[in-house]
């Protein structure tokens, strides 16, 4: 029996733009089990970024319900949402979002600082995870001394280091060439095989097909479906 870790029911998100009310997500139903590698495929403007923000607890739904690890995510105080993000979500961004001043290892340690992990343990865990993504010899390098693919690996290590419930990747290959992108996808597949839960948001059907399961989002509506090229 697969364990359900994410459950959305009739989830609606509306934004008020001036006098106009804009419905971005129009009643999303989504369920994710532990160990899924879900691709959310959609063109720009489809609402996929909004969906990602809600999954990542950066935003809350207007109506409907969203359960993450059994916890109802609603209009909670900013401080509570930040704790949930720290514990449950490992973000991977298109532009890597590494701090240029810090070494690869220090970048990976960042979420552990906010989790209140002591310095020695932070160093051990970050070193271990960087080794896992193949950057054992680049730990002291700064992001600008690394290639795009290596930077994204650092970002993946940063997402993994807290052992979150979900790895949430937003166009993780968007800033990489095709070959490097495929290497990153191979890493994702490895992580999937290790049992990590991954949610990947992309507009690229070729990238999406790396997932074990694909959902399409068009104009705020989500449809489960097999990929058809």
């Amino acid at each position, binding site marked *: 029996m697969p364990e359900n870790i994410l459950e959305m029911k009739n989830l609606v998100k509306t934004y008020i733009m001036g006098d106009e009310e804009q419905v971005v997500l129009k009643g999303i139903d989504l369920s994710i089990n532990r160990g899924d590698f879900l691709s959310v495929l959609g063109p720009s403007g489809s609402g996929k970024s909004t969906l990602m*923000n809600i999954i*990542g607890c*950066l*935003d809350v739904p207007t109506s409907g319900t969203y359960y993450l690890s059994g916890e109802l995510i609603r209009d909670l105080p*900013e*401080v509570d949402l*930040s*704790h949930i*993000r*720290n*514990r449950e*979500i490992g*973000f991977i*961004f298109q*532009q890597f*979002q590494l*701090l240029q*001043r*810090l070494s690869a290892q220090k970048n990976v340690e*960042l*979420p552990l*600082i*906010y*989790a*209140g992990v002591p310095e020695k343990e932070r160093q051990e865990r970050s070193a271990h995870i960087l080794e896992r993504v193949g950057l054992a010899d680049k730990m002291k390098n700064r992001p600008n001394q690394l290639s795009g693919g290596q930077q994204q690996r650092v970002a993946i290590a*940063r997402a993994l280091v*807290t052992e979150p419930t979900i790895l949430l990747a937003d166009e993780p290959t968007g800033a990489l060439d095709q070959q490097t992108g495929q290497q990153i996808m191979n890493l994702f597949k490895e992580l999937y095989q290790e049992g990590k839960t991954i949610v990947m948001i992309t507009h690229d059907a070729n990238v999406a097909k790396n997932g074990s399961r694909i959902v399409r989002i068009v104009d705020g509506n989500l449809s489960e479906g097999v990929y058809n090229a």
Partner: protein
Amino acid sequence: MLKESIKMAIENIISNKMRSFLTMLGIIIGVGSVIALITIVSGATSTVTDQVASMGANTVTVQVQGTPLKQGLTQGDVNKIAELPNIDGVAPTISGQTTVAFDGNAMDEITLQGKNDVYFENTEDVISSGRIINTIDTENQSRVALIGNDIANELYVGKNPIGQEIKIGGITYHVIGILQESDSFASADTNSSVIIPYTTAMGVVGAKYINSLTVYIADEALADTTTRQIEGVLTKSFNGEEESYSIVNMQSILETIEEMTSILSMMLAGIASISLVVGGIGIMNMMLVSVTERTSEIGLRKALGAEPKQIQLQFLIESVVLCLIGGIIGFILGVSVAWVVANLIGTSFALTASTVLLAIGFSAAIGVVFGFMPARKASRLNPIDALRSI
């Protein structure tokens, strides 16, 4: 978390060296000028008050112009004052001009002063060698003299003047001591002076009046009462003609000096602290720019689980660290300037713990006050908008 924030703040300051330095400059100049002014003024104050105190904090000085009929104090007047309560002793001074001669050499335009043993007992470093005028000299109207440095050098070439004779105004005295060489700061030039017992000046030379009188008070706390009583004696002896004498209480002068300089010091520090406020605005400006520049960093940190309070603390620490570094540089600069100035104008230089605390406290406070608004702005950024601004 605090340690991490401080580390990150320092890293960020270092990675923006030029901008951090320019921003700090306001704090450096502000703290530097406040510290320099306070240190210089307090050094000058203590020098002045020391000098005044060395003239005797426990003294009341009476200067007498006299009336046409009575051109000074008589011995009787002095005795009346000496008999008042709370008085340790009185030292009359008689002043005049005279000539001195020894062994065929002569000098004119020499200042002649008549003083007594009380003066010498209460005043330090009057002579450089020999002995002072004592009670017996005063009582016996002895013909003994202390001579100034110039006189000793000019009249007694190659000889020790002590024990020699000297003719002062044609009368022969014994030289018993040589006066301390006076520097340009002294109130009176003693290098071409001679001092004899004042009783000798009255009895032998024929001076009739005492022009000035220093009264030594036993208990300084009662200085005001004693001063009034002295005034009472003076009023009587000059028939109420107040303009014929002046009376100065050193204690009250000291208090006035201290009061004035502390007002001066506060005023100067107040003016200098305007530059601190300007420096603080500079800090606020840089922090606001920094928040804007690092919007995506703030967004990222929030996505990784930073609480709004932690973001606020990070930026607040950054501004405090910036101000503290500026404050420490400014403090060192201010103290150095004060030290150089104190050496140039010859006042004392003293660094107090309160000055150090003032500098550190002030700069930290500026960091908090002017860093608060930018830090709060950073903490309130919406992580979605912040992440989007790449």
